[in-house]
């Protein structure tokens, strides 16, 4: 396993570094008050609802914003966490839950409900900094308030060659007891190099 790691990293001149745990990384990055984060996200959702008016449109826009974040977030994640290439999707999910969520949001998720083939699982979030102080009014009952998170996961995984579908199964703002995000691997896209070998 160590050899394959070295082969996949043609530019490493030093010995491969051990992956860092989520807590360690979170302690080493710069942090801001979660309340500023929560309130800013609330302002964004409010602006979207005012502009778009349709709850479905807002859901889609949040997912799109999350996707834009995810495709850039993955670079920072890989740079800071030193994780090696994941062997299978199970490991990917564990890494997202334990390292990814921790280093950006300061909370860990847990991974459950694996299906038989190992391509579909649920990430459970007990604690979610996005939803402090939030209550959904009756007019917005169809809103997935945290939909930005599903976009982030989808975008990040797409950049590492995994096409996924991410949906919410449980939502605390709708009365459930936790946040459950279902991540389903659709297909693995082999990496394409932009230049042909003979040029």
């Amino acid at each position, binding site marked *: 396993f160590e050899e394959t790691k070295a082969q996949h990293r043609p530019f490493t001149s030093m010995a491969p570094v051990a992956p860092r745990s989520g807590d360690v990384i979170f302690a080493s990055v710069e942090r801001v008050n979660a309340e500023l*984060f929560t309130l800013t996200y609330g302002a*964004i959702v409010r602006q979207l609802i005012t502009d778009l008016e349709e709850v479905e449109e807002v859901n889609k826009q949040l997912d799109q914003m999350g996707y834009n974040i995810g495709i850039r977030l993955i670079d920072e994640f890989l740079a800071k966490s030193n994780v090696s290439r994941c062997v299978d999707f199970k490991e990917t999910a564990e890494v997202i839950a334990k390292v990814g969520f921790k280093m950006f949001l300061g909370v860990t998720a847990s991974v459950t409900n694996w299906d038989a083939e190992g391509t579909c699982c649920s990430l459970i979030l007990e604690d979610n900094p996005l939803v402090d102080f939030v209550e959904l009014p009756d007019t917005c009952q169809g809103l997935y308030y945290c939909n930005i998170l599903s976009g982030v996961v989808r975008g990040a995984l797409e950049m590492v060659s995994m096409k996924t579908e991410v949906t919410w199964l449980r939502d605390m703002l709708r009365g459930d007891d936790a946040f459950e995000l279902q991540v389903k691997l659709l297909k693995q896209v082999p990496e394409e190099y932009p230049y042909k070998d003979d040029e």
Partner: protein
Amino acid sequence: MIGVGKIKQYTNVLDKPLSKGKQEVSLSAFAFLFSELVQYNQTQVDNIAELERRLEDAGYAVGARVLELLCHREKGNRRETRLLGILSFVHSTVWKVLFGKALEIGFGGTLVKKVLMEVSDRFQDMKDGLLPDAWDLGEPTMVDLWSCLVLRSAVQGSRIESLAALQQMNLFPLEQIKPNCSPVADSLEKGTEHEDEYMISEKELLVNRFISILKDMGTFNCGAFVAGIVRGVLDSAGFPAVVTAHFVPVEGQLRPRTTILIKFAEEVDTASFMSDMSLGLNALLHLNLHAKGTTERSKIRMMFTQVSCSLSLVSMFELVPSDLVSISSETNASLFIYRNASDVAYILVCVDDIVNTGNHNSYDIEHISQSAYHVVGCLIKDVGQLHDFLGVGVN
């Protein structure tokens, strides 16, 4: 993993216990989120002014909520009614909670000029024989030093432990203070003519850290979001203002500083601010009267005790300085009178002594001492019944 039980469900979000506010997320998470906010708004507008306005509106909502949250959590539901109080709240509490650090604050030029002139007049009167030799640093610098100290301590409630610490403070000579400039702690900013304008200045706003502005966007500043937060706080506290964010280029630095300019609406009483400043001057007078025969260290301490106690009384209890007892100056304020339907209390502050009297023990010393400790860290001891004061016997 520890067994997970069912989390208690709260039907109403208001029933949930309020967190202590110590939870954090990574800076990059916030930066990503903020960039999406800006990018989304860019698609919704045609011009820069509207973009700034939308960012400000987003910030306004945040500011209103921040005020509620912090008033409840940090200040025990006290409402600020004085300008000094709300400005201190914004630049210390709000900034510290949201962005993790405290800031410098500057004042409009003519206000400072008034204060400076008053100080220099006072010193003219008392110069002969009363100024301790150690302080004789030359007239212009002296005025500058004291006024800066007074202003700064008055707003920030800071304490100076020794003369050495004082000398290390970065105060610049009077030549650089023109009538329309404001002596802000570590940066010279272009001052303003207006008394009702205040500036909060920061080297780099948190929200701007990962943002670079295109040249063709002119003077656009994402700090408009922060300006919106400040406006939200001030507006919801009852001090309507127009708040804007500007880039101020600084010599020798690649990236410009950001200044948040607060211009209060006409109905806000900015004159009361002057009397708050004058409390600091009062300390000066008392200090000089009592200065003989004591060491420098205790002189400084006495001065700041006076300022801080006076300010703490004003800001904590909203006591109004009375001019019943005064040394024929509009800047002296030693006697505080509190009056409501049934209670009256008189508090006389003199350097480091406080005399308190009234009916019903409306403002007992316990309460005052705790607040003074909170503001300046000085302890006030209750020495019981008054026997003599300033050499005059009392019975």
